[in-house]
């Protein structure tokens, strides 16, 4: 399987983000009988967001397993299966429900390899649909990836495109460590070129989606998509933005971000998680500690989720997280006025 980022050739067929994940799962299960998918409603129903689709019919109830509503229990089951030779892929129905599974993910999965002196490994994958925009309100719309990016022993990724959704999934399944994949609900239907053969997108490597000179915009998941759209608009105002799609939060590709900031001298970080104490705070600090600091010609700017549980009302819901307009305005303010 290729290990480098595969740039889709022109004419590559398009799949939706959900279909790309499904294809990745199918290919992984085909290639390795230790891989199995389990979670609530992933089997017969095809998954709450339709991701597993017909996998149940293709692979049967022993490879695609419906579980009771027992997030703590199934997260622990993933740990147990992983340490005894299997490669479980656990789907938590909404990323918000990870709160019920925290014990097994944070205290067990993340720490077993270390606590046992390197003697056991936990090659498990947890897929979590997160993010807001569907009117699901406070308990079904959160972006909690920063919590897990804070835990040594875990890996955390966020694909923004169908191509990366498949590639990061396959990389995660291959990884001997526990990997959390935060998918975004609003992205499931987006389409993009996805190569047919299996391939990996390396964990820990960001992608420069657009090269530019005037500022660096860093984001992940749907914010990377919005940042690219914002950059296209900014070009019309003579602001040339470089857009970096993080893809990985832990490990994070500081090298790519720092190189970009050294070039553009301005940094705007955009993320859906609550602004304070989030990944934007971390990236700002990392850059301030790096040698890119001396090349900053303006304060580091952050756009993050508002300090509020996600509201139900659609106007309020949109206002609670950064939108494309917000990114354009923030970039303009940073470049033209030198303000964060």
């Amino acid at each position, binding site marked *: 399987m290729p290990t480098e980022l595969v740039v889709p050739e022109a004419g590559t067929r398009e799949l939706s983000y959900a279909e790309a994940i499904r294809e990745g799962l199918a290919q992984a299960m085909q290639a390795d009988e230790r891989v199995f998918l389990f979670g609530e409603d992933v089997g017969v129903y095809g998954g709450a967001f339709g991701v597993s689709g017909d996998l149940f019919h293709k692979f049967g109830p022993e490879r695609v397993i419906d579980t009771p509503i027992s997030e703590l229990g199934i997260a622990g089951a993933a740990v147990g299966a992983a*340490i005894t030779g*299997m490669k479980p892929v656990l789907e938590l129905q909404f990323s918000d429900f990870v709160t019920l599974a925290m*014990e097994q993910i944070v205290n067990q999965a993340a720490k077993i390899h270390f606590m046992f002196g390197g003697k056991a490994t936990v090659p498990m994958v947890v897929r979590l649909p997160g993010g807001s925009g569907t009117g699901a309100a406070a308990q079904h719309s959160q972006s909690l990836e920063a919590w897990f990016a804070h835990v040594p022993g875990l890996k955390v990724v966020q694909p923004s495109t169908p191509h990366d959704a498949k590639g990061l999934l396959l990389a995660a399944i291959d990884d001997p460590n526990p990997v959390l994949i935060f998918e975004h609900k609003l992205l499931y239907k987006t389409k993009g070129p996805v190569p047919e053969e299996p391939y990996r997108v390396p964990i820990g490597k960001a992608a420069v989606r657009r090269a530019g000179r005037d500022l660096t915009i860093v984001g992940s998941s749907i914010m990377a998509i919005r940042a690219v759209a914002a950059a296209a608009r900014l070009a019309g105002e003579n602001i040339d933005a470089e857009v970096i799609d993080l893809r990985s939060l832990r490990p994070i590709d500081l090298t790519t971000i720092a190189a970009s900031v050294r070039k553009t001298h301005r940094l705007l970080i955009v993320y859906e998680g609550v602004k304070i104490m989030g990944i934007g705070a971390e990236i700002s600090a990392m850059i301030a500690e790096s040698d890119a600091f001396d090349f900053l010609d303006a304060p580091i700017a952050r756009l993050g989720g508002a300090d509020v549980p996600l509201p139900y009302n659609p106007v309020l819901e949109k206002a609670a997280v950064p939108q494309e307009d917000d990114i354009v305005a923030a970039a303009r303010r940073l470049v033209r006025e030198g303000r964060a």
Partner: protein
Amino acid sequence: MAIAPGSRTIAAQATERPELAALSDDGLRVALSRMHLIRKFEETAEASYMRGLIHGTMHLSIGQEASAVGATLELARDDYILSTHRGHGHCIAKGADPARMFAEFFGKENGYCRGRGGSMHIADIEGGNLGANGIVAGGLPIAVGVGMSIKAQKQHRVCMVFFGDGAANEGAFHESLNMASIWRLPIVFVCENNKYGMSMDIARAMAVANVADRAPAYAMPGVTVDGNDLPVVVAAARPAIERARQGGGPTLLECKTYRLRGHSKSDRNLYRSKEEIEAWREKDAIRRLESELIAHGRFDEGELLAIEQAAQKTIDDALEFAKASPNPDPAQLTRDVYAD
């Protein structure tokens, strides 16, 4: 039958109870050796701790040796166990080397976990001990995953998971028993009910009188036994192990026992009376068994003493080994956070 000098009298051949009769001499030697190893290990660990040689705290299982040894006596080496924070006994019962255990408690590099885990996270992966657990009920969901793994790989192994009375009130207990039952997993759930959580009497904490009373709620057999009576524990574990191995599903085995020491080293035993502790000391599992064996002429005092002394020597040597072992290098602080 041959009469060994000074060992048996005809009067001593009163009928053994079936549980004892079912145990071979070799089996009994192994059981006694292990119980003595556990007792002496715990006493020595306690003494080292009081001398300031051990960092942190310890959860001693003095008084609970019969349940640990009895439950595991008839497991195969490649069967798995999962243990609790009070797991030294289980670890030794499963065949671990006390020397490497002491080294781990002393935080040394050649301890089982390279000094990274300590008492609460002791593990002997090669020996089938998938780890003690610092989280109450932490091992239960993991056991579910181990059971799924055994079934998926079509192995004939059994997973035995230990937990305490307090854990039976954690959500993880209920989720795990439910899933083990619906999927008929090869698990033996062994509850060591020592009457107390930390300070909370089980009678005040639990809605039913015995933990095993909950087994029918999960459609599995539930058995309650005197956990300080080794032959009874073995007799109860045997069918549960067999059932699991034959694909019959899980069993809940409750061993009523008592810990003679406090919850941890900082426990001042304010929640129970000296009289209670003394009463249980009378029922000490090791002396009971030895008396019975002598009474039935299975062994004589000399043989029993030899077993005990051999155990003492092993423990003494183990302690010296641990004291002489090297400390980890701080430069290796972050090794094994991730597997390669």
